[in-house]
């Protein structure tokens, strides 16, 4: 009896319980039998506990260097540090999918525990959806990508016996980075978080309970998923920037797109549920968007896990391709059918009164986000589709994405500024003049100044101008709100801003998120001004990049149990002043027999200096050095932090509306 047997046992019993939960929940709700529904609820929790057991079993094997397990042997090695051994659990296909299942069942268990007390009719159906998804992933864990398979050796007599190599193959050096240890779990929590809103949405559609109840139930879930997804995307970018050594953080790579797609659809959903709550409109949008978000999350996992991105042939070879395809298509079919058959129940409660209203602002925001989602999706899957249809693989490349997504992104940025200034239902001309005077003046002043001092290029100029415009609208909202409170409650301005933000946390949290987005756009615009040079440098050689001069002081070597490293000591000068000292490294990892470049980055708010040791020349006396100056990159990460803080603010519970309650009641 080995640890692998414990793991195998846990996932097979979990698989059985997942199916059990689907059956009892759905039967129970049909027959109105609380006992069966309770069993479905308990089954869901049991599945989570069993998958947890499997997770800890795999961790135990990783930490104990149990190389008889093929996953441990294939991804870990003895000298790997403790942190990386823990992170190795999601370094490969089998482990990643087990993590997927764990997070999914964890969310399901939390959903059950938070909603079960209320005898909620939606919950049993939601459990049905959640555990169907759980059973699907447990099927993969058990029969397609089992992380507990053992290695066997064949004896001279031809019998198979357990066999373990002396040491594992080691973790891919590119993954040996702190961001890569936490990036997959965070991204997965983001992806999978959307499964709960999706499950409640299908339940609401099925039972025709399409008022605000399900929307209110899933709002928090969606926000939590959205935080993690945003965080995961940013960490992925951060990792690419610090580890991959090509000077950027976003390349419209299919794997990156896979995480952006559900983010775009989820963002649209978060906006349009506000309109359903306030005005009972856009109901069809909401159900469509959440189904789309969930399907794109699964699709993202499918793309990254089946290898279909590199070629259609990989799809046929991969052992998860077909199951994923079938799963996505069935859920696509079910959602489409439910939405179409429930269209009469999804009628709007109010009409759109005016083009210049908050509602239409939300509508156009949704349209733009959806257009972005669709164009990114088409660009991402185009190689596969073209290969299937014409037999020739045609990819669209970064030029396509930049051409399409930059205008759409900037239109969205503009709407971020315009939308919140409009009133619900209709906005009078007088109020338009009043509210847009300051931001538009700011825009008109900023544009020529930026044109004269920063850049003549159209898109960067537009982007920076819009950043100014949106920032002004946000500041104006804070100022006007605070002024209203100062009048009414006789508070000082600072107090007023604090109370304002707390009492209207959803609105003002949203503004802070918007400001985070502005900062991210600012940082991304910096990419237009990147400078790069490449040179072969020996000790004492110089190279210039932008306003900086790099001087190689010395070339040294060092070695530890994990890798050998060749290091450059570089001093960076601006004029005669020393800006910083940098140490880019070229490493060679023993276990995996792979080289890796350790980038050295000097962070500044205005611009990063980014130096890569790209290898040696033929006679090994000089180093190939790649240097970049990346303006404003840090603002992307700062914007990310602001965005996350803003979303936390949106998650705070509402403050009671005692005053109005009393007023209407009297």
């Amino acid at each position, binding site marked *: 009896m080995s640890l692998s047997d414990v793991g195998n046992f846990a996932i097979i019993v979990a698989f059985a319980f997942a199916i059990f939960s689907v059956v009892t929940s759905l039967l129970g709700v049909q027959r109105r039998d609380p006992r*069966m529904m309770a*069993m479905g609820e*308990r089954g869901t929790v049991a599945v989570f506990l069993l998958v947890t057991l499997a997770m800890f079993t795999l961790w135990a094997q990783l930490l104990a260097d149990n190389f008889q397990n093929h996953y441990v042997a294939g991804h870990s090695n003895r000298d790997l540090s403790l942190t990386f051994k823990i992170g190795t659990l999601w370094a490969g296909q089998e482990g990643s999918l087990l993590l997927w299942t764990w997070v999914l069942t964890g969310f399901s268990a939390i959903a059950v525990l938070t909603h079960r007390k209320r*005898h909620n009719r939606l919950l049993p159906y939601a459990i049905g959806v959640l555990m169907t998804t759980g059973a699907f992933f447990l099927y993969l864990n058990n029969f397609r990508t089992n992380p507990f398979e053992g290695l066997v050796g064949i004896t001279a007599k031809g019998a198979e016996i357990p066999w373990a190599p002396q040491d594992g193959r080691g973790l891919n050096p590119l993954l040996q980075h702190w961001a890569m240890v936490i990036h997959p779990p965070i991204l997965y929590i983001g992806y999978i978080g959307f499964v709960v809103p999706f499950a409640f949405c299908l339940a609401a559609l099925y039972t*025709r309970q399409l008022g605000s109840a399900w929307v209110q139930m899933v709002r928090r879930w969606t926000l939590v998923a959205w935080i993690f997804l945003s965080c995961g995307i940013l960490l992925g970018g951060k990792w690419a920037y610090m580890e991959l050594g090509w000077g950027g953080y976003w390349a419209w790579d299919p794997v990156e797109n896979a995480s952006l797609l559900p983010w775009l659809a989820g963002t649209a959903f978060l906006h349009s549920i506000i309109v359903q709550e306030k005005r009972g409109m856009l109901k069809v949008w909401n159900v469509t968007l959440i189904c789309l978000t969930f399907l794109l999350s699964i699709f993202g996992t499918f793309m990254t896990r089946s290898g279909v991105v590199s070629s259609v042939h990989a799809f046929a070879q991969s052992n998860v391709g077909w199951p994923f395809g079938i799963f996505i298509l069935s859920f696509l079919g079910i959602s489409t059918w439910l939405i179409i058959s429930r269209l009469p129940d999804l009628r709007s409660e109010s009409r759109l009164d005016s083009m210049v209203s908050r509602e239409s602002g939300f509508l156009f925001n949704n349209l733009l986000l959806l257009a972005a989602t669709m164009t990114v999706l088409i660009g991402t899957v185009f190689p596969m589709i073209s290969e299937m249809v014409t037999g020739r693989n045609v990819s669209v490349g970064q030029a396509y994405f930049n051409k399409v997504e930059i205008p759409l992104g900037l239109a969205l940025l503009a709407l971020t500024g315009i939308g919140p200034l409009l009133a*619900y239902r209709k906005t009078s001309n007088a109020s338009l003049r009043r509210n847009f005077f300051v931001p538009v003046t700011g825009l008109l002043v900023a544009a020529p100044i930026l044109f004269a001092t920063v850049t003549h290029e159209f898109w960067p100029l537009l982007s920076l101008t819009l950043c100014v415009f949106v920032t002004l609208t946000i500041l104006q*909202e804070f100022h006007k*709100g605070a002024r209203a409170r100062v009048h009414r409650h006789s508070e000082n301005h600072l107090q007023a801003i604090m109370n304002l933000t707390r009492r209207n946390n959803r609105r003002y949290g949203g503004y802070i998120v918007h400001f985070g987005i502005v900062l991210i756009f600012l940082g991304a615009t910096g990419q237009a001004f990147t400078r790069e040079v490449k040179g072969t440098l020996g000790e004492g050689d110089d190279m210039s990049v932008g306003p900086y001069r790099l001087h190689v002081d010395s070339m040294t070597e060092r070695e530890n149990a994990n890798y050998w490293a060749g290091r450059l000591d570089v001093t960076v000068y601006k004029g005669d002043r020393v800006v910083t000292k940098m140490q880019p490294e070229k490493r060679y990892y023993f276990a995996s027999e792979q080289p890796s470049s350790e980038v050295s980055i000097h962070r500044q708010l205005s611009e990063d200096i980014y130096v890569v040791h790209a290898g040696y020349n033929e006679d090994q006396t000089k180093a190939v050095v790649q240097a970049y100056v990346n303006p404003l990159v840090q603002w992307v990460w700062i914007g990310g932090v602001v965005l996350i803080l803003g979303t936390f603010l949106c998650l705070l519970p509402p403050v009671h509306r005692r005053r*109005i*309650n009393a007023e209407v009641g009297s």
Partner: protein
Amino acid sequence: MSTNFVLVALTILTATWVLWPLRQRRIMGWEFSSEDTPLGRLTLRKEVLLGNISDLDFEFAMGKLGEEDYREMREALKRQTLKIMEQIEVLLETGTPSPSDTDGPVNASSKCAGCGGSLPADARFCPHCGSPLQ
């Protein structure tokens, strides 16, 4: 060997816990409550309407609406809220939703398994015969 034993014991334990609800007798005519009831729906709508009024006040204070629009919209919201509050009161007094509740189909009101009398939405005990409900 001992691991085998532990695993079997674990399975039995989990299965017992999951199947535990079966030991209770089945309650015939059991109904859902909370958000699904007329009362739950009305309460939710009241909350939303109060929130809308609060937002409207706020937007007016910030100068996004004209005086006239504001008065008109606020009156409309207030009327709607009052109507909902009246319906809630009627519901609490009589135990049946007033006919003006138009928000979705109303479930057939539930019956007590012991005596067959009709039950208020979130009753714990039957008001007619006193038998405890789920």
